[in-house]
């Protein structure tokens, strides 16, 4: 008789325990799927870049690496790609805004996984890695050079290496020492005086410089982090050991990241980016010229002679679908900037497209508060996160840097 009583009360207890969630697993199946989709082991192999036939040619990557670190690739011989993209600092410079020959208005972007981007720069004003590499070379605030001078420099310093990869250099004997359609008034005049054939020859050498640098940059890929080790263990049902185990605060941060805080909406996939552009109400920097983000970049990428539709693209036009189906107008482009990858972010302050925030706490506070944009419409909504929740998000973000 007593047995029956015991059984009944046991049943009631089990029911209560189930109701109370004593046996609740740490993550739901939906959360587990999302976490698995963020792990580095889901990153597919790097696709071929048919617009750059030298993209996977080792000699091109080797020349590109030489050029990347060569301060000779600038007016005055003081600035290289690596001045801002520092090899021991995730290929960025820890500054709010990049400093080359002059002071720029934008934060240097890190390069891990850059070859996987469909668009380049914070506003996407270039559509290939090789077209991107050409832009700082002629920007008066960055390397401040001009394409005629670069062609002469390549012939003089790297002529043999260049010709082994790209074939014979053109005759540059009558090409002015300094000329570019984007340079000083004198350089523009010199460029406009050049015969079309000669201008195209110089443009081709210039494009090949970009293709070599891009070939080198393709080798820069993100590395495994504590988060990835945790995620792989979670996916395989193994109990995370050692540094792969997350603290309760890191688990809360991860749950918020993929849940209530909506971070994963844009920071998705193994690179933590949707490769798209969003207005998130990030405030402008006082005293900088107006910066309208993606809305101004659309015209720039269309006008770029080195874009995918241009004559310097290798392969066929089927590679140009991003440019072909690009959004060209609309309110959503105003002050829209690229979603940056969050891998390694915790160890590369300051943040945002012009270094507006100096800590991750400030970044998370911005997204929690969601102040309206000074221009255009912010896509984010206030989250009302508690101090504890904001700290947990930062703790989780740090696992992407360890």
């Amino acid at each position, binding site marked *: *008789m007593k*047995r*029956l*009583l015991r*059984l*009944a*009360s*046991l*049943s*009631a207890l*089990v*029911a*209560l*325990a*189930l*109701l109370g969630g004593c046996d609740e697993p740490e993550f*739901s199946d*939906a959360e587990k799927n999302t976490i698995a989709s963020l792990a580095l082991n889901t990153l597919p192999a790097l696709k071929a870049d048919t617009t750059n036939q030298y993209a996977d040619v080792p000699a091109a990557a080797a020349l590109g690496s030489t050029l990347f670190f060569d301060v000779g690739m600038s007016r005055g011989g003081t600035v290289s790609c690596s001045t801002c993209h520092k090899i021991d600092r995730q290929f960025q410079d820890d500054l709010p805004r990049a400093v080359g020959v002059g002071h720029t208005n934008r934060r240097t972007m890190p390069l891990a996984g850059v070859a996987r981007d469909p668009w380049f720069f914070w506003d996407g004003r270039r559509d290939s890695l090789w077209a991107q590499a050409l832009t700082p070379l002629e920007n008066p605030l960055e390397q401040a050079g001009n394409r005629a001078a670069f062609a002469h420099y390549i012939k003089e310093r790297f002529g043999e290496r260049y010709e082994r990869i790209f074939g014979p250099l053109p005759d540059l004997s009558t090409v002015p020492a300094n000329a570019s359609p984007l340079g000083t008034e004198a350089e523009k005049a010199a460029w406009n005086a050049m015969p079309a054939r000669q201008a195209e020859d110089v443009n081709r050498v210039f494009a090949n410089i970009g293709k070599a640098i891009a070939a080198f940059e393709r080798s820069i890929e993100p590395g495994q982090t504590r988060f990835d080790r945790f995620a792989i263990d979670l996916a395989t049902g193994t109990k995370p050991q050692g540094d792969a185990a997350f603290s309760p605060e890191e688990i809360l941060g991860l749950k918020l990241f993929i849940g209530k805080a909506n971070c994963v*909406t*844009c920071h*998705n*996939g193994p690179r933590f980016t*949707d*490769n*798209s*552009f*969003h207005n998130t109400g990030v405030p402008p920097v006082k005293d900088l010229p107006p910066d309208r983000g993606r809305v101004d970049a659309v015209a720039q990428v269309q006008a770029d002679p080195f874009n995918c539709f241009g004559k310097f693209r290798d392969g066929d036009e089927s590679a140009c*679908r*991003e440019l*072909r*189906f*690009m*959004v*060209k107008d*609309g309110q*959503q482009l105003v002050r829209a900037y690229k979603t940056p990858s969050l891998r390694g972010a915790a160890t590369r302050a300051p943040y945002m497209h012009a270094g507006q925030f100096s800590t991750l706490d400030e970044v998370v506070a911005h997204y929690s508060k969601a102040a309206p944009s000074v221009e255009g*419409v*912010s*896509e984010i909504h206030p989250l009302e996160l508690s101090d504890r929740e904001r700290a947990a998000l930062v703790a989780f973000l740090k696992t992407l840097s360890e």
Partner: protein
Amino acid sequence: MLRAARDVISRRGAGLASIWRYILAGLGLAALLVGILTVVYLTAPHSAPGPDTSRSKKTASGLFVASFEPERGVIRQGELQSWLLTLKTSAGAPVEGAAITVSGGMPQHNHGLPTSPQATDYMGAGRYRIDGVKFTMSGWWQLRFAISAAAGSDSVVFNILL
């Protein structure tokens, strides 16, 4: 639980005095059932009454029947993909020579489409290739088609849940 049930059955007819025990056992079993049901409910994917996600429907004014399917059968988040929009009259005849424009976005996210898809090819039998479709995040997407053909102009909205 099985054992409890067996006990209940084997002790049938044990007398009026034990009726309270049956009631207690019954209560326990009921509580267990409620617990199990609660867990099932809490862990089941919540299918809140979402938007109509049918891939085939009448256009707004009933001029055409439109179907919209990914050309390769699967949706891959973050990739540029082509879809097929098939247009038929209500009598089932293929609609040819239609002019189609595409718009859309995420109604809950304050943003439009990340690309501008276009009708790029007519594939015959009322089928149009809509290329440049890209879904960059999960959630509720809408694609709106404005369709102009000999029979007149109409529009249709497809909801896609990712």
